[in-house]
């Protein structure tokens, strides 16, 4: 069962229990599962969903649609920003050009997330890495390979624009270069 299903099942059980408590005692009072302490089960709930302003970096998303991963570069001082930003704090100008990141990068570090946030509980375990790409910026993203034994610091990776499912939107991920992946597997087999 996925973590999402487990959470949903658990919440259903709690809610059924609370409804029963209200019928029998008149209150949404439930004993704590671990300690038996009386808990008031909140009768109000709140869903948060934000609308995030991206107008000034809209070009970034157009780039993804073209299959390109774009950073901003300050036309005045040359500073490069990824994630892209519209203002350059270094020289205080806001005159940016968009530059595509080089394809070949190096993995600086990685992890595999097993215990997931509730809004990510529907995914299988996923790897997250940070890799450095020309012209010298770091990109944090999922890595296509989620077995930590097949990853290593310093391995060659490239970025790819991919469709994130099941949400169905474009994003980017890190992909181990094939010869590198084989090499790591080979080491594993020898080890």
């Amino acid at each position, binding site marked *: 069962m996925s*973590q999402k299903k487990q*959470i949903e099942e*658990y*919440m259903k059980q709690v809610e059924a229990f609370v409804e029963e408590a209200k019928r029998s005692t008149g209150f949404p009072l439930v004993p*704590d599962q*671990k*300690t038996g*302490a009386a*808990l008031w089960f*909140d009768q109000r709930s709140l869903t948060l969903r934000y609308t*995030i302003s991206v107008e000034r970096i809209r070009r970034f998303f157009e780039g993804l649609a073209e299959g390109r991963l774009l950073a901003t570069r300050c036309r005045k001082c040359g500073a490069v920003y*990824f*994630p892209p930003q519209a203002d350059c704090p270094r020289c205080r100008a806001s005159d940016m050009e968009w530059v595509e990141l080089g394809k070949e990068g190096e993995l*600086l*570090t*990685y*992890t*595999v*997330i*097993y*215990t*997931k*946030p*509730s*809004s*990510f*509980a529907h*995914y299988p375990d*996923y790897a*997250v890495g*940070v890799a450095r790409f020309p012209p010298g910026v*770091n*990109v*944090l*993203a*999922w890595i296509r390979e989620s077995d*930590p034994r097949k990853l*290593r*610091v*310093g391995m060659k990776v490239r970025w790819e624009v991919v469709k*994130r499912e099941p949400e169905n939107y474009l*994003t980017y991920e890190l992909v181990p270069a094939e010869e590198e992946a084989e090499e790591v597997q080979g080491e594993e087999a020898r080890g």
Partner: protein
Amino acid sequence: MPGRRVAIVGVGHSKYGYRNDVSLPELAWEAIRQAIEDAGVDQESIDYVVYGNVGVWSSEPLPAVVINEYAGLTPRGTMRVEAACATGSAALKAAYDAVSAGAADIALVVGVEKMNESPTPTVVELIGRAGNYFWEFENFGLTFPGYYALYATAYMAATGATEEDLCRVAVKNHYYAARNPKAHFPREISLEQCMKSRYIAWPLKLYDCSPISDGAAAVVLASEELARKLTDTPVWIKGVGVASDTSNISRRPDFLVRRGVVEAVKKAYRMAGIDYENAARQVDLAEVHDAFTIAEILSYEELGFAKRGEGYLLAREGQTYIGGLVPVNVSGGLKAKGHPLGATGVGMAAEIATQLRGEADRGRQVPVRHGVGVANNVGGTGHYAYVFVYSLNP
């Protein structure tokens, strides 16, 4: 320009843990009552109250006024501050500044957190969102263990540290938590138990991670003149250092050292007259931010207790137990005493004051030779860095 000297004159510390037996204000009151009784002051003599509380997982959005009312502190001036896991230290800094500047003679600092008012997956979600929301969480679902795992992977690859070395930190901190009745997990664990625990975010395992805790801590701060009247054992705040690092973890030059923490340590040491290169021999103990075992090892290096890349050797050699180079987290640390975010930094202050006064529990009181302790409280993965040096000498 140095302001007035400021001392801790009273401390309070609730039991940390799964505290669904009490409400937020009831939990805070446990620590407040102890602190004001320890200081020998009443509510009327307190000029200013600062609360450290991250909240969101708990129901009260205005904890400062809710707790002020419950604790008989209305109409004292108050506010709540937030700096992720360093929230308690941010509250302490705000109160310290007020007393140091002469805006208050006596200030009360309260750190309190009730994380267990929400289910665990919600808490994992809320802490995971604390970084750069759009570029890290929205698309890639980072978690707090995940962020520190990025540091652990890079550190292990660069230094030769192993997963066993990380677990040794957990074993030590559980050893001391077993001697601290206020700890969330007052029990020892074995190296094997830690090594066999399941992965949360590779290479960090369950026992590498601090728990989701409820708890409260409080300290009373006073100006020099009042501190000397109130107590024979004021614990002076000798050094304060604050710094920050990027919200996007990817914007950092490496994952081996937290620049903000080093900066905060150096500022605090300079103010307190501690030599960075020789710091371990000038302090009696350190409380460091072991939200994850890797973080304690990074702290050894950032506090100047070990050279860069050699912090793990202190763990491997047991040098941070009492009797070693320098005792670290003999409270049990965040790892085993617990990590109720808003309370943590205030709890560190209470612990060091108690240790310097020679009043710690049996089996975990450090020998007090210099009368100096250092606290290193870190929000996020170095996003917020707070360091305090405490001393028996003004």
